[in-house]
Every structure is written in C-alpha cells, then in structure tokens.
C-alpha cells in the first residue's frame, strides 16, 4: 500500500470516527437514527412473538338468538375475542365506524343449519383497516367454518350411520336373498315336476270303456239266461211235475201202485212238493233275481250315472289339470322371472354393499372436509415474527439508511466545519466514502443486533450466515445510496428528513407490505417489484427464513447488487453536482457579518 493510499485510508477512518462521534453526541439524532430502528425491532419482536390475535372485538346481532347462534358466539368468545351484542344490525355496523368493534356478525332470523334463508351469517368489516381486515376475515372465516364443519360433521355422521346400517342390513339380508333364490329355483323345479306329473296324468275317461251298455246287455242277457234258466228250471220242474204227475198217474195207474207205488207216489208227491218248493224257490229266485236285477239295473244305472258323473268330474279334473299345468307353466315362468328379479335384487344389493363398502372415507370430518387445506409455514412456525422478519429487516434497513445518511450528510454540510474541511487537501471522495462507511458501520451494528434476535427465531440464520451477510451488505449499500442521494440532493436537514420520510413512505406503500404486488396492475407490479424494500425483503426471506444458500439467490441478488452500485454512483453524481452550492453556503456562513 503506497503512502497516498494509506493517507487516504487514514483520512477515511478518522472521518468515520468523527461522523460516529458527531452522530452519537447529537443525542436526538442518535436516538432517532440508531435507537429508533432498534426500538422498532424490539417492539416488533414483542408484538409479533406470538400467534394469537388479541383485542379483536366482535359485534353481534341476531333478530332471534338461538342455541346455534349462541354457540357460534360462545366459540368466538372462547378464542379471546370480545363479543358485544347489539340490539340491531344498524347499531352494530355503526359501532365499527366508531371503532368500538372490529367486525359485526349478523345472523339471519331463526338461524339454522342447512335451512335456506336462515343459514346466513354475514360479517361486516371495515376495509379501511386494510391491515386488520384480512386477519379478521380469515379469523372469522376460520372460526365460523370450524363451527360449520362441526355441525356438518354431525349431520354427516347421521348419514354415515344410516349408510352403515344399510350396508349391514344388506349384508345380513344377502343369505336370505340367496335362500330365496335357491327356494325360488326349487319351487320352479318342483312346479316343473308337478307340471310334468300333472301333464302325465291321463284324466281321459271313456264311458264306453266301462261297457255299461254291454253291462246292461249282459245284465239283460244274464237275466235272460237266468230267466231262461229259471224258465227252463221251471219248465224242468214243470216237466218234472208233469213227469211225476205222469209217473204218478202212471204209478197210480200202474200196478206198481201199492207201497212202492205209494212210496213212489209219496216220493212223487214229495218230489212234487219239493219240485213245487223248488218251483216256489225258483219263483222266489226269479223274484229275487228280478229284484236283484232291478237293483242291479239300478246299480248299473247308478254306475253309469256315476261313471258319467265321474267322467264329468274327470273331464273337469282334466280341464283343471290342463289349467293347472298352464298355471304352473305361468307360475314357472313367473318364478323364472322372479328368480331373475331376485338375482337382480341380489346383484343390486351386492352392488349397494359393494358401493357402500367401497366408500373408503367413513370419517365424517373427512367427508365434510374432503381436502383439508392446512396452510403450513415452510419453516417451523414459532410466531408472527417469522412472517414479518424479512419485512421488518427491510424496513429497518430502509428507514435507518434513509434517515442516517441524510442526517450524517446534513451534520457535515451544515456544520461550521464544512468550510475548513474544504480547505484541507483531503480528497472530496473521502468525505463521500466516509459517510457511506459510517452508514454501513452503524447499519451493520443494527443488523448484528437484528441477526442476534433472528438467531433466536431462525436457526437458518446461522446456517446461511454468509448469504445473509452479503444480502444485508447489499441492502445496506442500496438504501445508504438512496439515503445519500436524498442527503446530497436537499439543502436543509428538515427538507432532507422530510424527503427521506416521503421516499420511505412511497417505497413502503409501493411494496408488498400493505398491498400485495400481485393485486396491482401488471405494469405497476413490474415496476414495484424492483422496489428495494421488496428486493431486500425477498432476499432476506430466502436467506434468513428459508436458509437458502448463496447460489440459490440468483437474479435477485444481482439486481440488488446492481441497484446498490447504481444508487451509490448516482449519489456520487449528486454529491459532486451539489457541492459548489454547499461550499457557497458554507462560505456565506463563515463570512457573514
């Protein structure tokens, strides 16, 4: 290192030392510029080091409170929300305007579940509280949805129970259906058998086959022959008698008459008697025969009648059989059809059972929320500080640099010593660099404190420390450059601070802190995405929160570096451009009379 460089560095260091002393001794500046951001990080740490929402007041109105609406409100009360009931919706909404409450929940009349027109729960919010409204909306939606889900789960459980019961019933009834199928089949088979049997039964009855007429004929023939026999018998008897009489006469007339004759005669007489007896018996017999034949005729007639009757019956039976066969055929067909139906029923029941069984999700909560949209942080969540840390860092860097650089520059430019500094042979660039270096040193102190705090919350910080340091340095460079542009561009401390605050506000409003970049018009979003607050915030998020390595920072890092160089270069141009004006001002100060 040659002498001029070493002299330059010595000058630079003593100027930095002087800047820090001046800043620290200007107590108000030191407090605002150095202490302010540290207080911010402290308060932010305290304020956001939790995951709850405190002190949110909810107004409520229902034309008719019931168990359901009360349960909603009780649920909200349990979650640290202050619930205030209002007599009407108008006063509830007015309370939001007065700032008494943050949101107003209006229940529809007779608030009820799944009842059209009565299941509406409206939340009124004040969108002017843009930073709070989404939290409230999200929280309310979360809480109400939780209750709605709870109720839906109850309803779904009932449906699921019914389905389960149905499935069990179907399962249990399946053997019966199978039995029914089997029995139906058996019945069908039997019906076929019966039909077959019936079909085989010959119920044809031909009276002729009974030869009733022959019977009569035979009866007549028999009677004839009996009558003939009887006539013969009678004739025989008559002949016998005639013979006997003839004999008797002969006997009587013959010598043989005497004992023998007598005997003969007696015999004759006896025979005649006997023959007469026989004749009598024949007559009786004939009478009986006639009687019997009469009866036989009656019987035969009866038989014939019966046969006729039987034939009619048989004919009827036959027709009945025919009908029965037909009916059985119909029955069989019906049974077949029934069997098909039963099989269909069985199939349907199987399908129902299968369908019910195939419902894998049987948990009511899973059905109510088939997709559980759990939004989880990509890093372990500890508190809100996780979410706002990059933004806070970016804002602190921005506001500190925007206040620090102009303050230091104004301390220098408005100092009575400005004139004497100009008188020295120290290079102009030394003064510029001393301001830059002082800002970087003071910002580094703050960043160290911030990283110290961050280290408590994000272990990634330690892992990706080199990346974070680089990002922080580039961020500090960029914001310091911007602050120096403001500092050198303005004449008085007041206007410079106003300029810084205004610029800071513009950068704040045109960042994604208040309004998401994605919600801006495309052309504006493209510009706003180059906002240093966003650039630095994004890179801090990637490094400190996600622990991404240096290589993963890509184009954002290059953009930040380039922006920093441009800012410093522009600040240098402004410095050289405005220096004559400030020298003149310094001269007018020291020479004023």
């Amino acid at each position: 290192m040659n002498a001029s460089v070493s002299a330059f560095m010595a000058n630079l260091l003593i100027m930095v030392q002087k800047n820090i002393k001046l800043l620290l001794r200007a107590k108000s500046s030191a407090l605002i510029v150095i202490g302010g951001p540290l207080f911010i990080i402290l308060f932010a740490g305290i304020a956001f080091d939790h995951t709850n929402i405190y002190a949110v007041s909810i107004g409520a109105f229902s034309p008719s409170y019931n168990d359901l609406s009360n349960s909603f409100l009780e649920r909200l009360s349990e979650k640290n929300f202050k619930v205030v009931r209002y007599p009407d919706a108008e006063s509830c909404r007015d309370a939001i305007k007065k700032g008494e409450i943050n949101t107003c929940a209006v229940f529809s009349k007779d608030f009820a579940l799944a009842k059209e027109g009565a299941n509406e729960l409206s939340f009124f919010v004040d969108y002017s509280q843009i930073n709070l409204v989404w939290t409230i909306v999200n929280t309310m939606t979360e809480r109400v949805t939780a209750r709605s889900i709870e109720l839906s789960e109850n309803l779904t459980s009932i449906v699921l129970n019914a389905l389960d019961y149905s499935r069990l019933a179907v399962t249990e009834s399946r053997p019966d259906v199978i039995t029914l199928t089997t029995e139906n089949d058996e019945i069908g088979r039997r019906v076929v058998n019966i039909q077959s049997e019936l079909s085989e039964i010959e119920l044809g009855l031909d009276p002729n086959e009974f030869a009733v007429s022959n019977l009569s004929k035979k009866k007549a023939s028999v009677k004839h022959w009996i009558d003939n026999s009887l006539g013969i018998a009678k004739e025989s008897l008559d002949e016998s008698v005639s013979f006997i009489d003839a004999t008797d006469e002969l006997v009587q007339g013959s010598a043989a008459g005497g004992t023998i004759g007598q005997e003969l005669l007696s015999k004759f007489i006896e025979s005649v008697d006997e023959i007469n007896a026989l004749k009598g018996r024949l007559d009786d017999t004939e009478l009986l025969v006639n009687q019997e034949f009469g009866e036989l005729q009656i019987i035969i007639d009866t038989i014939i009648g019966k046969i006729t009757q039987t034939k009619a019956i048989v004919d009827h039976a036959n027709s009945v059989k025919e009908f029965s066969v037909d009916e059985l055929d119909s029955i069989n067909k019906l049974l077949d059809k029934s069997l098909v139906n039963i099989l269909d029923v069985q199939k349907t029941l199987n399908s129902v059972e299968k369908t019910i069984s195939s419902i894998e999700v049987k948990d009511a909560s899973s059905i109510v929320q088939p997709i559980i949209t759990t939004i989880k942080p990509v890093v372990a969540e500890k508190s809100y500080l996780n979410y706002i840390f990059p933004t806070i860092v970016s804002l602190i860097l921005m506001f500190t640099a925007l206040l620090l650089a102009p303050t230091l520059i104004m301390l220098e430019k408005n100092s009575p010593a400005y004139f004497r500094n100009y008188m020295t042979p120290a290079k102009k660039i030394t003064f510029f660099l001393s301001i830059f270096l002082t800002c970087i040193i003071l910002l580094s102190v703050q960043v160290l404190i911030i990283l110290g705090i961050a280290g408590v919350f994000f272990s990634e910080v330690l892992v990706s420390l080199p990346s974070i340091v680089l990002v922080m340095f580039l961020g500090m460079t960029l914001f310091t450059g911007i602050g120096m542009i403001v500092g050198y561009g303005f004449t008085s401390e007041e206007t410079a601070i106003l300029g810084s605050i205004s610029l800071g506000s513009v950068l704040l409003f045109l960042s994604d802190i208040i309004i998401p970049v994605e919600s801006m018009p495309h052309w504006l979003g493209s510009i706003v995405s180059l906002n240093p607050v966003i650039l630095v915030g994004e890179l801090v998020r990637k490094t400190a929160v996600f622990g991404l390595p240096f290589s993963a920072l890509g184009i954002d890092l290059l953009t930040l570096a380039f922006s920093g160089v441009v800012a410093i270069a522009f600040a240098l141009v402004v410095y050289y451009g405005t220096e004559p004006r400030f020298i003149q001002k310094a001269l007018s100060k020291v020479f004023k009379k």
Partner: protein
Amino acid sequence: MVPALDSASLKATLLNAGWPDSLVSEYNELIENEPKLPASIILTGITKSFEGKSVLNGVNFTIAPGELFGIIGLSGAGKTTLLNILVGFLQPDAGTIFLRLPNGQDVELEKKLELVKRMVGFSAQHPSFYPKLTVRENIEHFSALYQVPLEQRRELSTMLIRGVGLDGSENVLAQNLSGGMQKRLDIACAMVHRPKILILDEPTADLDPLIRAQLWKLIRAINSQGTTIIVASHFIGELERNCSKIAVLNHGIIADVDSVDGYRKKNGNLYEITLEPSGSRNELLEILKSHKNYERLVQRGNKVVLYTSSPKKALSELVALSSDAGIKMKSVKLDKPSLAELVHNLMSP
C-alpha cells in the same frame, strides 16, 4: 515587513509570547523540516463582479513573507470577496494571484489550489470546526486531514492547544467554549498544517477587549514564527497597533497600501483639534458653521473634533469665536490624527 526569523530568534519570540519552553522546542522542531516560506503574495489586477456589480476592480498589492498584513474597508468594500479569492474559493474575473517562491518562481494560485490549501490557513469571522467535537478532537481531526502523521498528531494538538491558550479545555466540547476560546480554537485548527500564510477574517469581532488583546498577542506570536498573516478587520486601531502593513479597500479599489508610519507620513500636515464645551455642544456647532478653516468635523459625545492642516490659525479663530459667543471650553486638545482618521479620509469621497 517582519524579517524571517532564525531558530534562535523564533524561540525567543515564542518565549516572549508566553509559550512554555518545552513547547517552543517542540514547535521549533516541527517546523525545521518545512519548506522555506514563499517570497511573497502578489495580487495583480484582481477584478470580480457579481451579477454585473463590480466588487473588486483591479486590486494590486504585494504581501511580503512573514508580514502581518491588515486589510481594512467598510462593509461592502470587497474584503470578503478578496479573502475568498485569496484562499481560492472564488476565481477572479480578471487578474492573477501569484505565490512567489524563494527560488523566484511565481506560482499562479488559481492553478495550484492544492498548494494553496497546504500553504494557507484560514480563520473566518465565524469559527469553522465541529461544535460536537472536543478541542483536541477538532485539532486532531483537521491535522489528520492535512495528513499530519499519526504519531505527531497528539503532540501537535497539545502544542497548539497550549499555543492558543486552551490548555485545560482540551476535552471540552467546542460548542461549550466561550467566544474568545472558540476563536482561538479556530485559529489552532487553521494552524494544524503549519501554514505559511494565515488569513484571518475579523478575528476579534464579537470579542471583548481583553480577549481581543490576548488574541492579538497570539497572532503576533504566530507571525513572529515567520508565518505571513493577513488580517481583515474593521477594528482599525487593532490593525494600527499590530500590522506592519495595511491595505485600505474602498469600493473594490485599493485606496492605499502602506505601513502605519507611511500613512502618517503621507498625512503629516493634518492635525486633530478636540473641543469639549462646558455646556451644550450645539452652540459650538452653530459658530463652527461660519468657521471654515478645517477639513472635517466629527462629533464624539459632547466633544467636537476638527481636522485641519493649519491648526494654529484654526485654534486662534475658534478661541475668538467662542469668546464672542460666550462659550466656555472645558478642554481643548491638539494632536496628530489616528490611522482611523487617515483611513477615513482615504475612504471619503
């Protein structure tokens, strides 16, 4: 012109000025290795206008090495503009300022601003230092900017603090110093690089007489080391008592440049008659209206001062007139006029 001092003379002068023995030795040592003083500062035809209004119009004069040079002029005379040009803050519209080096080489100031910065120290009417730094910090800061080696910075600051009489206040914040002390500190800051030329603008303005005397003692002590000092002041009496040469600047023009003795010689026939009436001066002023044997009349309290080149005649007439008018004189004094009056005459139209 104050002659360049050798080491022995310098030491004696510094000791005379009340500097401690050890400090004188240290300072003497420090300046041993410095380049020799420039021969002189030469202004030739310096002209400067602002928005068409001429402020300096062909200013010419030469300041010899080691001189304690005074510049006097009324407000708006162009003193400040001239000083600005001398320290290089302003560029003249015409004319040149040369630093004539001991080897006879003339260096154009405008083209050698860096050299000017190293050779010239400047203390304006209003101090130029950091109010929030202590006395020592201020001196060390500026000495660092003048690239005084770190190892010498401490002793230099100690020496300067003692030299300007701020010992005991070295750790006091500059803003807490009194006006005189602040002026001393400002001069110390202007001296950190041991300038060969020290320009002081109204060094004693706003200071009480005792402090002014102390400050002039300091200026003389510095001058006695061989530092050329240019003082712009409206306290003509102080310039008269301390400066070896005085330039009278009047409406952008150097009315004259001379030593106090030179001025007196140039105005050797002018006398000052101071009349103090017993009663009101109004009657005296009435009779003086008819008395025309004087160049100028000035009222100072109840006194009436007349400037005349024929004092005897004027006095006899005045005595006669006052006796006739019955005006009794409490005192009558005849003296040579002060430089102020001479300068006033130069600046009068």
